[in-house]
Protein backbone atom coordinates (compact mmCIF):
# COMPACT_ATOMS: atom_id res chain seq x y z
CA UNK A 1 0.00 0.00 0.00
CA UNK A 2 2.99 2.29 0.09
CA UNK A 3 3.49 2.35 -3.67
CA UNK A 4 3.31 5.51 -5.74
CA UNK A 5 1.93 6.14 -9.23
CA UNK A 6 2.86 8.96 -11.61
CA UNK A 7 0.20 9.62 -14.26
CA UNK A 8 0.92 11.30 -17.60
CA UNK A 9 -0.49 11.60 -21.09
CA UNK A 10 -1.48 11.99 -23.79
CA UNK A 11 2.20 11.93 -24.80
CA UNK A 12 2.42 12.50 -28.52
CA UNK A 13 5.00 15.27 -28.13
CA UNK A 14 8.41 14.27 -26.75
CA UNK A 15 8.69 13.72 -22.98
CA UNK A 16 9.31 17.15 -21.45
CA UNK A 17 11.16 18.35 -18.37
CA UNK A 18 7.74 18.80 -16.75
CA UNK A 19 6.89 15.13 -17.33
CA UNK A 20 10.24 14.15 -15.85
CA UNK A 21 9.62 16.44 -12.87
CA UNK A 22 6.41 14.49 -12.24
CA UNK A 23 8.47 11.28 -12.14
CA UNK A 24 10.93 13.03 -9.79
CA UNK A 25 8.01 13.97 -7.55
CA UNK A 26 6.88 10.32 -7.56
CA UNK A 27 10.43 9.19 -6.81
CA UNK A 28 10.69 11.48 -3.77
CA UNK A 29 7.36 10.13 -2.49
CA UNK A 30 8.37 6.49 -3.00
CA UNK A 31 11.70 7.16 -1.23
CA UNK A 32 9.74 8.33 1.83
CA UNK A 33 7.10 5.58 1.78
CA UNK A 34 9.56 2.79 1.06
CA UNK A 35 7.32 1.62 -1.79
CA UNK A 36 7.82 1.29 -5.52
CA UNK A 37 7.09 3.86 -8.22
CA UNK A 38 5.11 3.07 -11.36
CA UNK A 39 4.33 5.29 -14.36
CA UNK A 40 0.93 5.20 -16.07
CA UNK A 41 0.71 6.73 -19.54
CA UNK A 42 -2.86 7.42 -20.57
CA UNK A 43 -3.68 7.55 -24.25
CA UNK A 44 -1.39 7.56 -27.25
CA UNK A 45 2.37 7.88 -26.99
CA UNK A 46 5.42 7.25 -29.16
CA UNK A 47 8.13 4.59 -29.05
CA UNK A 48 10.70 7.30 -28.37
CA UNK A 49 8.79 8.33 -25.27
CA UNK A 50 8.50 4.72 -24.12
CA UNK A 51 12.27 4.39 -24.52
CA UNK A 52 12.87 7.59 -22.54
CA UNK A 53 10.63 6.50 -19.66
CA UNK A 54 11.97 2.97 -19.16
CA UNK A 55 15.37 4.30 -18.05
CA UNK A 56 14.18 6.18 -14.98
CA UNK A 57 14.43 3.31 -12.51
CA UNK A 58 10.69 2.82 -12.00
CA UNK A 59 9.14 -0.61 -11.30
CA UNK A 60 6.68 -0.65 -14.20
CA UNK A 61 5.69 1.58 -17.08
CA UNK A 62 2.01 0.97 -17.80
CA UNK A 63 0.45 1.98 -21.11
CA UNK A 64 -3.31 2.35 -21.18
CA UNK A 65 -4.66 2.76 -24.69
CA UNK A 66 -8.37 3.07 -25.28
CA UNK A 67 -10.53 4.52 -28.04
CA UNK A 68 -11.88 7.11 -25.57
CA UNK A 69 -8.36 8.32 -24.68
CA UNK A 70 -7.20 9.14 -28.21
CA UNK A 71 -7.99 12.81 -27.72
CA UNK A 72 -7.95 14.15 -24.19
CA UNK A 73 -11.12 14.74 -22.22
CA UNK A 74 -11.15 15.15 -18.44
CA UNK A 75 -14.04 12.71 -18.12
CA UNK A 76 -12.29 9.84 -19.94
CA UNK A 77 -8.90 10.46 -18.31
CA UNK A 78 -10.42 10.49 -14.82
CA UNK A 79 -12.39 7.30 -15.54
CA UNK A 80 -9.21 5.67 -16.86
CA UNK A 81 -7.32 6.34 -13.61
CA UNK A 82 -10.28 5.04 -11.60
CA UNK A 83 -10.44 1.88 -13.73
CA UNK A 84 -6.66 1.34 -13.44
CA UNK A 85 -6.51 1.62 -9.64
CA UNK A 86 -9.23 -1.01 -9.22
CA UNK A 87 -6.49 -3.60 -9.77
CA UNK A 88 -3.53 -1.66 -8.35
CA UNK A 89 -3.05 -0.15 -4.92
CA UNK A 90 -1.22 3.11 -4.40
CA UNK A 91 -0.69 5.43 -1.46
CA UNK A 92 -0.19 8.51 -3.61
CA UNK A 93 -1.15 9.13 -7.24
CA UNK A 94 0.70 12.11 -8.67
CA UNK A 95 0.93 14.18 -11.84
CA UNK A 96 2.47 17.45 -12.88
CA UNK A 97 0.28 20.58 -12.64
CA UNK A 98 -1.08 21.43 -16.07
CA UNK A 99 -4.33 22.67 -17.54
CA UNK A 100 -5.43 19.06 -18.03
CA UNK A 101 -4.36 17.77 -14.58
CA UNK A 102 -6.16 20.76 -13.04
CA UNK A 103 -9.42 19.37 -14.38
CA UNK A 104 -9.05 15.60 -14.46
CA UNK A 105 -7.20 15.11 -11.16
CA UNK A 106 -9.85 16.63 -8.85
CA UNK A 107 -12.44 14.76 -10.88
CA UNK A 108 -10.54 11.52 -10.21
CA UNK A 109 -10.20 12.38 -6.50
CA UNK A 110 -13.96 12.82 -6.16
CA UNK A 111 -14.67 9.58 -8.05
CA UNK A 112 -12.28 7.69 -5.75
CA UNK A 113 -13.50 9.68 -2.73
CA UNK A 114 -9.94 10.53 -1.64
CA UNK A 115 -8.36 13.87 -0.66
CA UNK A 116 -6.08 15.83 -2.99
CA UNK A 117 -3.28 18.41 -2.81
CA UNK A 118 -2.79 20.86 -5.70
CA UNK A 119 0.40 22.27 -7.17
CA UNK A 120 2.73 20.85 -4.52
CA UNK A 121 6.08 22.61 -3.94
CA UNK A 122 7.56 20.02 -1.57
CA UNK A 123 6.80 16.82 0.29
CA UNK A 124 7.08 17.48 4.02
CA UNK A 125 6.28 14.00 5.26
CA UNK A 126 4.67 10.79 4.15
CA UNK A 127 3.48 8.17 6.64
CA UNK A 128 0.85 5.46 6.31
CA UNK A 129 -2.55 7.22 6.36
CA UNK A 130 -0.99 10.71 6.36
CA UNK A 131 0.79 12.94 3.87
CA UNK A 132 1.91 16.55 4.35
CA UNK A 133 2.61 18.69 1.30
CA UNK A 134 3.72 22.31 0.88
CA UNK A 135 1.61 24.37 -1.49
CA UNK A 136 1.66 28.09 -2.34
CA UNK A 137 -1.41 30.14 -1.43
CA UNK A 138 -2.53 33.78 -1.74
CA UNK A 139 -1.00 34.28 -5.20
CA UNK A 140 2.23 32.64 -4.17
CA UNK A 141 2.82 34.99 -1.24
CA UNK A 142 2.60 32.32 1.47
CA UNK A 143 3.29 28.63 1.79
CA UNK A 144 0.75 26.34 3.41
CA UNK A 145 1.44 22.90 4.86
CA UNK A 146 -1.53 20.76 3.78
CA UNK A 147 -2.20 17.53 5.63
CA UNK A 148 -4.08 14.75 3.81
CA UNK A 149 -5.41 11.82 5.82
CA UNK A 150 -6.35 8.37 4.60
CA UNK A 151 -4.79 5.37 2.88
CA UNK A 152 -4.79 7.03 -0.55
CA UNK A 153 -4.37 10.57 -1.81
CA UNK A 154 -3.85 12.47 -5.05
CA UNK A 155 -1.38 15.29 -5.65
CA UNK A 156 -0.26 17.47 -8.53
CA UNK A 157 3.23 18.96 -8.33
CA UNK A 158 4.77 22.19 -9.57
CA UNK A 159 7.27 21.20 -12.26
CA UNK A 160 9.82 23.89 -11.37
CA UNK A 161 10.26 22.49 -7.85
CA UNK A 162 11.15 18.88 -8.73
CA UNK A 163 14.14 17.34 -10.50
CA UNK A 164 14.10 14.67 -13.19
CA UNK A 165 15.28 11.30 -11.85
CA UNK A 166 18.75 10.10 -12.86
CA UNK A 167 18.88 7.94 -15.96
CA UNK A 168 19.69 4.31 -15.22
CA UNK A 169 20.86 1.50 -17.50
CA UNK A 170 18.35 -0.97 -16.11
CA UNK A 171 15.17 -1.12 -18.21
CA UNK A 172 11.72 -0.98 -16.60
CA UNK A 173 9.21 -3.43 -18.04
CA UNK A 174 6.49 -1.90 -20.22
CA UNK A 175 3.08 -3.36 -19.48
CA UNK A 176 0.09 -2.75 -21.69
CA UNK A 177 -3.22 -2.57 -19.88
CA UNK A 178 -6.66 -2.71 -21.38
CA UNK A 179 -9.95 -1.49 -20.01
CA UNK A 180 -13.05 -2.88 -21.69
CA UNK A 181 -15.67 -0.45 -20.40
CA UNK A 182 -16.40 2.91 -22.05
CA UNK A 183 -14.40 5.75 -20.44
CA UNK A 184 -15.71 8.85 -22.17
CA UNK A 185 -18.79 10.81 -21.13
CA UNK A 186 -21.65 10.61 -23.60
CA UNK A 187 -22.39 14.33 -23.07
CA UNK A 188 -18.82 15.56 -23.73
CA UNK A 189 -17.14 15.93 -27.07
CA UNK A 190 -13.72 17.27 -27.99
CA UNK A 191 -14.21 19.62 -30.97
CA UNK A 192 -10.90 21.23 -31.87
CA UNK A 193 -7.60 22.53 -30.56
CA UNK A 194 -5.81 25.57 -31.88
CA UNK A 195 -2.35 26.74 -31.07
CA UNK A 196 0.02 29.25 -32.55
CA UNK A 197 2.94 27.62 -34.31
CA UNK A 198 6.28 28.89 -33.13
CA UNK A 199 9.87 27.92 -33.79
CA UNK A 200 10.82 29.20 -30.33
CA UNK A 201 11.23 26.84 -27.37
CA UNK A 202 8.27 25.88 -25.19
CA UNK A 203 7.69 28.49 -22.48
CA UNK A 204 7.84 26.02 -19.57
CA UNK A 205 10.89 24.21 -20.96
CA UNK A 206 13.08 27.15 -22.00
CA UNK A 207 16.39 28.02 -20.32
CA UNK A 208 15.75 31.70 -20.99
CA UNK A 209 12.42 33.53 -21.12
CA UNK A 210 11.95 37.08 -22.39
CA UNK A 211 8.60 38.46 -21.20
CA UNK A 212 6.74 41.50 -22.42
CA UNK A 213 4.43 43.76 -20.44
CA UNK A 214 2.12 46.62 -21.31
CA UNK A 215 5.20 48.83 -21.77
CA UNK A 216 5.79 47.34 -25.23
CA UNK A 217 2.85 49.54 -26.32
CA UNK A 218 1.59 47.23 -29.07
CA UNK A 219 2.15 44.35 -31.46
CA UNK A 220 3.92 46.59 -33.96
CA UNK A 221 5.75 48.80 -31.46
CA UNK A 222 7.75 46.92 -28.83
CA UNK A 223 6.83 43.32 -29.57
CA UNK A 224 9.25 42.93 -32.51
CA UNK A 225 12.06 44.13 -30.21
CA UNK A 226 11.16 41.58 -27.56
CA UNK A 227 10.97 38.82 -30.15
CA UNK A 228 14.29 39.79 -31.66
CA UNK A 229 15.91 39.76 -28.24
CA UNK A 230 14.37 36.34 -27.53
CA UNK A 231 15.72 34.97 -30.81
CA UNK A 232 19.24 36.16 -30.06
CA UNK A 233 19.07 34.28 -26.76
CA UNK A 234 17.29 31.27 -28.27
CA UNK A 235 14.66 32.09 -25.65
CA UNK A 236 10.93 31.58 -25.27
CA UNK A 237 8.66 34.62 -25.28
CA UNK A 238 6.27 35.25 -22.40
CA UNK A 239 3.65 37.88 -21.70
CA UNK A 240 1.64 39.48 -18.94
CA UNK A 241 -2.11 39.41 -18.67
CA UNK A 242 -2.36 42.97 -20.04
CA UNK A 243 -0.56 41.97 -23.23
CA UNK A 244 -2.80 38.93 -23.77
CA UNK A 245 -5.99 40.79 -22.87
CA UNK A 246 -5.08 43.45 -25.41
CA UNK A 247 -4.84 40.72 -28.04
CA UNK A 248 -1.16 41.45 -28.75
CA UNK A 249 -0.17 37.85 -27.97
CA UNK A 250 -2.15 34.56 -27.63
CA UNK A 251 -3.20 33.20 -24.23
CA UNK A 252 -0.65 30.36 -24.13
CA UNK A 253 2.13 32.94 -23.71
CA UNK A 254 0.76 34.29 -20.45
CA UNK A 255 2.93 33.78 -17.36
CA UNK A 256 1.30 33.95 -13.94
CA UNK A 257 -1.62 32.79 -11.83
CA UNK A 258 -3.61 32.56 -15.04
CA UNK A 259 -1.19 31.10 -17.54
CA UNK A 260 2.03 29.25 -16.99
CA UNK A 261 4.53 28.88 -14.20
CA UNK A 262 8.11 29.17 -15.43
CA UNK A 263 11.49 28.88 -13.68
CA UNK A 264 14.19 29.41 -16.31
CA UNK A 265 17.89 30.16 -15.74
CA UNK A 266 17.24 33.73 -16.89
CA UNK A 267 13.97 35.66 -16.90
CA UNK A 268 14.11 38.99 -18.72
CA UNK A 269 11.12 41.14 -17.76
CA UNK A 270 10.67 43.86 -20.36
CA UNK A 271 8.32 46.77 -19.71
CA UNK A 272 6.21 44.86 -17.22
CA UNK A 273 5.19 46.23 -13.85
CA UNK A 274 5.27 42.98 -11.87
CA UNK A 275 1.72 42.48 -10.60
CA UNK A 276 1.66 39.72 -7.96
CA UNK A 277 -0.40 37.52 -10.28
CA UNK A 278 2.46 37.67 -12.80
CA UNK A 279 5.23 37.31 -10.21
CA UNK A 280 3.63 34.12 -8.85
CA UNK A 281 4.35 32.52 -12.23
CA UNK A 282 8.06 33.44 -12.48
CA UNK A 283 9.32 33.98 -8.94
CA UNK A 284 11.39 30.77 -8.93
CA UNK A 285 13.49 31.81 -11.95
CA UNK A 286 17.25 31.53 -11.22
CA UNK A 287 18.16 35.06 -12.34
CA UNK A 288 15.58 37.79 -12.91
CA UNK A 289 16.47 40.91 -14.88
CA UNK A 290 13.93 43.73 -15.15
CA UNK A 291 13.97 46.61 -17.60
CA UNK A 292 11.34 49.25 -16.89
CA UNK A 293 11.38 53.03 -17.07
CA UNK A 294 9.31 53.32 -13.87
CA UNK A 295 11.68 53.04 -10.88
CA UNK A 296 8.67 52.33 -8.63
CA UNK A 297 7.56 49.25 -10.61
CA UNK A 298 7.12 46.30 -8.18
CA UNK A 299 9.04 44.02 -10.57
CA UNK A 300 12.22 45.60 -9.14
CA UNK A 301 11.36 44.03 -5.74
CA UNK A 302 11.80 40.53 -7.14
CA UNK A 303 14.48 41.29 -9.76
CA UNK A 304 18.09 40.30 -9.10
CA UNK A 305 19.17 43.03 -11.50
CA UNK A 306 17.12 46.07 -12.35
CA UNK A 307 17.67 48.57 -15.12
CA UNK A 308 15.56 51.73 -14.92
CA UNK A 309 15.42 52.68 -18.58
CA UNK A 310 12.96 53.03 -21.43
CA UNK A 311 12.74 49.65 -23.12
CA UNK A 312 12.70 51.33 -26.54
CA UNK A 313 16.25 52.52 -25.81
CA UNK A 314 17.51 49.64 -23.66
CA UNK A 315 16.39 46.69 -25.79
CA UNK A 316 17.87 47.89 -29.11
CA UNK A 317 21.11 48.66 -27.26
CA UNK A 318 21.09 45.20 -25.69
CA UNK A 319 20.35 43.55 -29.04
CA UNK A 320 23.27 45.37 -30.58
CA UNK A 321 25.63 44.56 -27.72
CA UNK A 322 24.89 40.85 -27.51
CA UNK A 323 23.91 40.21 -31.12
CA UNK A 324 27.61 40.22 -31.98
CA UNK A 325 28.55 38.06 -29.02
CA UNK A 326 26.07 35.33 -29.98
CA UNK A 327 26.72 35.12 -33.68
Amino acid at each position, binding site marked *: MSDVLTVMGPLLRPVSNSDLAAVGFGESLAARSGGALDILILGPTTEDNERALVHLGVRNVYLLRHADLESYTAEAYASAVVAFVKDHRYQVIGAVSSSSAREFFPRTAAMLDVP*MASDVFAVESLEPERAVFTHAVFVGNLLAAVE*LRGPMSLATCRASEFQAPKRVEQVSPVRRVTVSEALGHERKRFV*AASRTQSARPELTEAEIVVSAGRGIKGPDEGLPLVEKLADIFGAAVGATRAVVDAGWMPNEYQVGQTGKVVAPQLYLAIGLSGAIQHVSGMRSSRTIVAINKDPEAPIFDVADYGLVMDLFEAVPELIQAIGGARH
Partner: protein
Amino acid sequence: MKILVTVKRTPQRDSRINVASGGTLAMESIEFEINPFDELAVEEAIRLKESRGAEVVVVTVGGEVCRRQLLSAMAMGPDRAIRVDAGEALDSLQIAKCLAEVARREAPDLVLSGKLAIDDEGAQIPAMLAALLGWPQANQASKIELSPDGKVAEVVCEVDAGLETVEVTLPALVTADLRLNEPRYASLPGIMKAKKKPMEVIPFDEIPDSGATRSAVIGYRALPPKPPGRSLGGVDELVEILSEKKLI
Protein backbone atom coordinates in the same frame (compact mmCIF):
# COMPACT_ATOMS: atom_id res chain seq x y z
CA MET B 1 -33.27 27.48 -18.09
CA LYS B 2 -31.81 27.50 -14.62
CA ILE B 3 -28.21 28.39 -13.80
CA LEU B 4 -26.51 27.72 -10.48
CA VAL B 5 -23.41 29.82 -9.77
CA THR B 6 -20.99 28.83 -7.00
CA VAL B 7 -19.31 31.70 -5.15
CA LYS B 8 -16.70 31.87 -2.41
CA ARG B 9 -15.92 34.64 0.06
CA THR B 10 -12.21 35.45 -0.32
CA PRO B 11 -9.89 38.23 0.91
CA GLN B 12 -9.98 41.30 -1.32
CA ARG B 13 -7.67 40.95 -4.31
CA ASP B 14 -4.24 42.41 -3.67
CA SER B 15 -4.65 42.21 0.12
CA ARG B 16 -1.35 41.53 1.82
CA ILE B 17 -1.81 38.64 4.22
CA ASN B 18 0.78 37.95 6.89
CA VAL B 19 1.52 34.93 9.00
CA ALA B 20 0.85 35.35 12.72
CA SER B 21 2.71 33.47 15.42
CA GLY B 22 1.91 29.77 15.49
CA GLY B 23 1.63 29.60 11.70
CA THR B 24 -1.90 31.01 11.51
CA LEU B 25 -3.05 33.82 9.22
CA ALA B 26 -3.32 37.39 10.48
CA MET B 27 -6.78 38.19 9.11
CA GLU B 28 -7.89 40.95 11.52
CA SER B 29 -7.75 43.89 9.13
CA ILE B 30 -8.55 41.99 5.94
CA GLU B 31 -11.66 42.90 3.93
CA PHE B 32 -13.51 40.24 1.95
CA GLU B 33 -15.23 40.14 -1.41
CA ILE B 34 -16.51 37.57 -3.92
CA ASN B 35 -13.67 35.53 -5.38
CA PRO B 36 -12.87 37.42 -8.62
CA PHE B 37 -13.12 34.28 -10.77
CA ASP B 38 -16.56 33.53 -9.29
CA GLU B 39 -17.59 37.08 -10.18
CA LEU B 40 -16.87 36.21 -13.82
CA ALA B 41 -19.16 33.19 -13.43
CA VAL B 42 -21.94 35.38 -11.97
CA GLU B 43 -21.55 37.86 -14.83
CA GLU B 44 -21.75 35.10 -17.44
CA ALA B 45 -24.93 33.75 -15.84
CA ILE B 46 -26.58 37.18 -15.89
CA ARG B 47 -25.63 37.67 -19.54
CA LEU B 48 -27.30 34.35 -20.37
CA LYS B 49 -30.32 35.43 -18.35
CA GLU B 50 -30.48 38.73 -20.26
CA SER B 51 -29.98 37.20 -23.68
CA ARG B 52 -32.26 34.17 -23.44
CA GLY B 53 -34.02 34.19 -20.08
CA ALA B 54 -32.91 32.12 -17.13
CA GLU B 55 -33.31 31.85 -13.41
CA VAL B 56 -29.94 32.48 -11.76
CA VAL B 57 -29.25 31.11 -8.28
CA VAL B 58 -26.00 31.82 -6.42
CA VAL B 59 -24.78 29.35 -3.85
CA THR B 60 -22.03 29.37 -1.26
CA VAL B 61 -20.88 27.10 1.54
CA GLY B 62 -19.94 28.92 4.73
CA GLY B 63 -21.03 30.71 7.85
CA GLU B 64 -23.22 33.77 8.43
CA VAL B 65 -20.30 36.02 7.38
CA CYS B 66 -20.83 34.96 3.75
CA ARG B 67 -24.21 36.76 3.63
CA ARG B 68 -22.54 39.94 2.45
CA GLN B 69 -20.90 38.28 -0.54
CA LEU B 70 -24.20 36.62 -1.49
CA LEU B 71 -25.85 40.05 -1.33
CA SER B 72 -23.12 41.58 -3.53
CA ALA B 73 -23.55 38.73 -6.00
CA MET B 74 -27.34 39.19 -6.09
CA ALA B 75 -26.86 42.93 -6.57
CA MET B 76 -25.33 42.09 -9.96
CA GLY B 77 -28.61 40.44 -11.07
CA PRO B 78 -29.18 36.85 -9.86
CA ASP B 79 -32.66 35.99 -8.58
CA ARG B 80 -31.91 34.30 -5.28
CA ALA B 81 -29.22 32.80 -3.11
CA ILE B 82 -28.58 29.65 -1.12
CA ARG B 83 -26.08 29.26 1.69
CA VAL B 84 -25.12 25.89 3.08
CA ASP B 85 -24.44 26.80 6.69
CA ALA B 86 -21.10 25.20 7.41
CA GLY B 87 -18.02 25.99 9.42
CA GLU B 88 -14.66 26.85 7.92
CA ALA B 89 -13.00 23.51 8.55
CA LEU B 90 -14.54 21.60 5.64
CA ASP B 91 -12.20 20.27 2.95
CA SER B 92 -12.74 20.71 -0.78
CA LEU B 93 -14.40 17.31 -1.26
CA GLN B 94 -16.87 18.05 1.56
CA ILE B 95 -17.68 21.45 0.06
CA ALA B 96 -18.19 19.79 -3.32
CA LYS B 97 -20.58 17.34 -1.62
CA CYS B 98 -22.55 20.27 -0.14
CA LEU B 99 -22.76 21.90 -3.58
CA ALA B 100 -23.76 18.59 -5.17
CA GLU B 101 -26.69 18.32 -2.74
CA VAL B 102 -27.81 21.85 -3.68
CA ALA B 103 -27.49 20.95 -7.37
CA ARG B 104 -29.61 17.83 -6.82
CA ARG B 105 -32.32 19.90 -5.11
CA GLU B 106 -32.26 22.72 -7.67
CA ALA B 107 -31.68 20.60 -10.82
CA PRO B 108 -30.05 23.42 -12.83
CA ASP B 109 -29.16 23.06 -16.51
CA LEU B 110 -25.79 24.69 -16.00
CA VAL B 111 -23.44 25.18 -13.06
CA LEU B 112 -20.94 28.01 -13.44
CA SER B 113 -17.91 28.39 -11.14
CA GLY B 114 -14.70 30.39 -11.04
CA LYS B 115 -11.70 28.38 -12.22
CA LEU B 116 -9.95 28.88 -8.87
CA ALA B 117 -10.27 30.75 -5.60
CA ILE B 118 -7.57 33.32 -5.04
CA ASP B 119 -7.00 32.34 -1.40
CA ASP B 120 -6.10 28.64 -1.30
CA GLU B 121 -5.66 28.28 -5.08
CA GLY B 122 -6.65 24.63 -4.90
CA ALA B 123 -8.82 24.72 -8.04
CA GLN B 124 -10.42 21.42 -7.02
CA ILE B 125 -14.07 21.98 -6.13
CA PRO B 126 -15.68 22.52 -9.58
CA ALA B 127 -14.21 19.34 -11.07
CA MET B 128 -15.11 17.42 -7.90
CA LEU B 129 -18.66 18.75 -8.10
CA ALA B 130 -19.00 17.71 -11.76
CA ALA B 131 -17.71 14.23 -10.87
CA LEU B 132 -20.13 13.85 -7.93
CA LEU B 133 -23.03 14.78 -10.21
CA GLY B 134 -21.74 12.57 -13.02
CA TRP B 135 -21.82 15.60 -15.31
CA PRO B 136 -19.44 16.65 -18.06
CA GLN B 137 -17.28 19.71 -17.43
CA ALA B 138 -15.41 22.38 -19.36
CA ASN B 139 -12.57 24.16 -17.58
CA GLN B 140 -11.07 27.65 -17.90
CA ALA B 141 -13.64 28.96 -20.35
CA SER B 142 -12.97 32.10 -22.35
CA LYS B 143 -16.19 31.73 -24.38
CA ILE B 144 -19.48 29.91 -23.84
CA GLU B 145 -21.95 29.58 -26.69
CA LEU B 146 -25.31 27.91 -26.17
CA SER B 147 -27.11 26.20 -29.04
CA PRO B 148 -30.42 27.86 -30.04
CA ASP B 149 -32.40 25.12 -28.28
CA GLY B 150 -30.28 25.67 -25.15
CA LYS B 151 -29.32 22.01 -24.88
CA VAL B 152 -25.66 22.10 -25.89
CA ALA B 153 -22.86 24.47 -24.93
CA GLU B 154 -19.79 24.95 -27.07
CA VAL B 155 -17.00 26.14 -24.79
CA VAL B 156 -13.61 27.58 -25.72
CA CYS B 157 -11.14 26.66 -22.98
CA GLU B 158 -7.76 28.25 -22.28
CA VAL B 159 -5.30 25.36 -22.04
CA ASP B 160 -1.50 25.19 -21.78
CA ALA B 161 -1.15 24.60 -25.52
CA GLY B 162 -3.49 27.42 -26.57
CA LEU B 163 -7.22 27.11 -27.02
CA GLU B 164 -9.37 24.02 -27.03
CA THR B 165 -13.03 23.83 -28.02
CA VAL B 166 -15.28 21.25 -26.40
CA GLU B 167 -18.96 20.57 -26.57
CA VAL B 168 -21.00 19.62 -23.52
CA THR B 169 -24.64 18.59 -23.52
CA LEU B 170 -26.43 20.06 -20.54
CA PRO B 171 -26.63 19.63 -17.64
CA ALA B 172 -22.93 20.45 -17.37
CA LEU B 173 -20.44 22.45 -15.32
CA VAL B 174 -18.24 25.21 -16.76
CA THR B 175 -15.48 27.17 -14.98
CA ALA B 176 -14.77 30.78 -15.86
CA ASP B 177 -11.35 32.13 -16.81
CA LEU B 178 -10.17 35.74 -16.94
CA ARG B 179 -11.13 36.51 -20.51
CA LEU B 180 -14.70 35.16 -20.34
CA ASN B 181 -16.18 38.61 -19.73
CA GLU B 182 -15.81 41.80 -17.74
CA PRO B 183 -18.00 41.70 -14.61
CA ARG B 184 -20.30 44.69 -14.16
CA TYR B 185 -20.47 46.85 -11.09
CA ALA B 186 -23.65 46.48 -9.11
CA SER B 187 -25.97 49.46 -9.59
CA LEU B 188 -27.56 51.24 -6.64
CA PRO B 189 -31.04 49.91 -7.54
CA GLY B 190 -29.43 46.48 -7.92
CA ILE B 191 -28.03 46.72 -4.40
CA MET B 192 -31.41 47.83 -3.01
CA LYS B 193 -33.22 45.02 -4.83
CA ALA B 194 -30.75 42.38 -3.63
CA LYS B 195 -31.83 42.99 -0.03
CA LYS B 196 -35.33 41.81 -0.91
CA LYS B 197 -34.25 38.71 -2.82
CA PRO B 198 -34.71 35.32 -1.11
CA MET B 199 -31.72 33.84 0.68
CA GLU B 200 -32.21 30.24 1.73
CA VAL B 201 -30.09 28.60 4.40
CA ILE B 202 -29.53 24.84 4.30
CA PRO B 203 -28.23 23.43 7.59
CA PHE B 204 -25.06 21.36 7.19
CA ASP B 205 -26.67 18.34 8.83
CA GLU B 206 -29.06 18.07 5.87
CA ILE B 207 -26.12 17.21 3.60
CA PRO B 208 -26.06 13.43 3.12
CA ASP B 209 -22.73 11.55 3.22
CA SER B 210 -20.60 14.66 3.67
CA GLY B 211 -17.87 12.41 5.06
CA ALA B 212 -14.93 13.17 7.32
CA THR B 213 -12.59 16.13 6.87
CA ARG B 214 -9.45 14.55 5.40
CA SER B 215 -7.55 17.58 4.18
CA ALA B 216 -6.53 20.60 6.24
CA VAL B 217 -3.88 23.31 6.36
CA ILE B 218 -1.79 22.68 9.47
CA GLY B 219 0.39 25.78 9.21
CA TYR B 220 1.34 28.75 7.08
CA ARG B 221 4.71 30.33 6.61
CA ALA B 222 6.07 33.25 4.65
CA LEU B 223 8.37 32.70 1.69
CA PRO B 224 12.04 33.09 2.56
CA PRO B 225 12.91 36.77 1.95
CA LYS B 226 14.68 37.55 -1.27
CA PRO B 227 17.90 39.59 -1.02
CA PRO B 228 17.48 43.04 -2.58
CA GLY B 229 18.39 43.21 -6.24
CA ARG B 230 21.16 45.30 -7.75
CA SER B 231 20.37 48.45 -9.65
CA LEU B 232 22.29 48.68 -12.91
CA GLY B 233 23.75 51.84 -14.42
CA GLY B 234 23.18 50.90 -18.03
CA VAL B 235 23.03 48.25 -20.72
CA ASP B 236 26.84 47.78 -20.61
CA GLU B 237 26.66 46.65 -17.02
CA LEU B 238 23.84 44.23 -17.83
CA VAL B 239 25.86 42.73 -20.69
CA GLU B 240 28.82 42.31 -18.33
CA ILE B 241 26.71 40.46 -15.79
CA LEU B 242 25.10 38.23 -18.40
CA SER B 243 28.56 37.26 -19.71
CA GLU B 244 29.86 36.61 -16.19
CA LYS B 245 26.94 34.26 -15.65
CA LYS B 246 27.65 32.68 -19.05
CA LEU B 247 24.11 33.52 -20.18
CA ILE B 248 25.48 35.05 -23.37
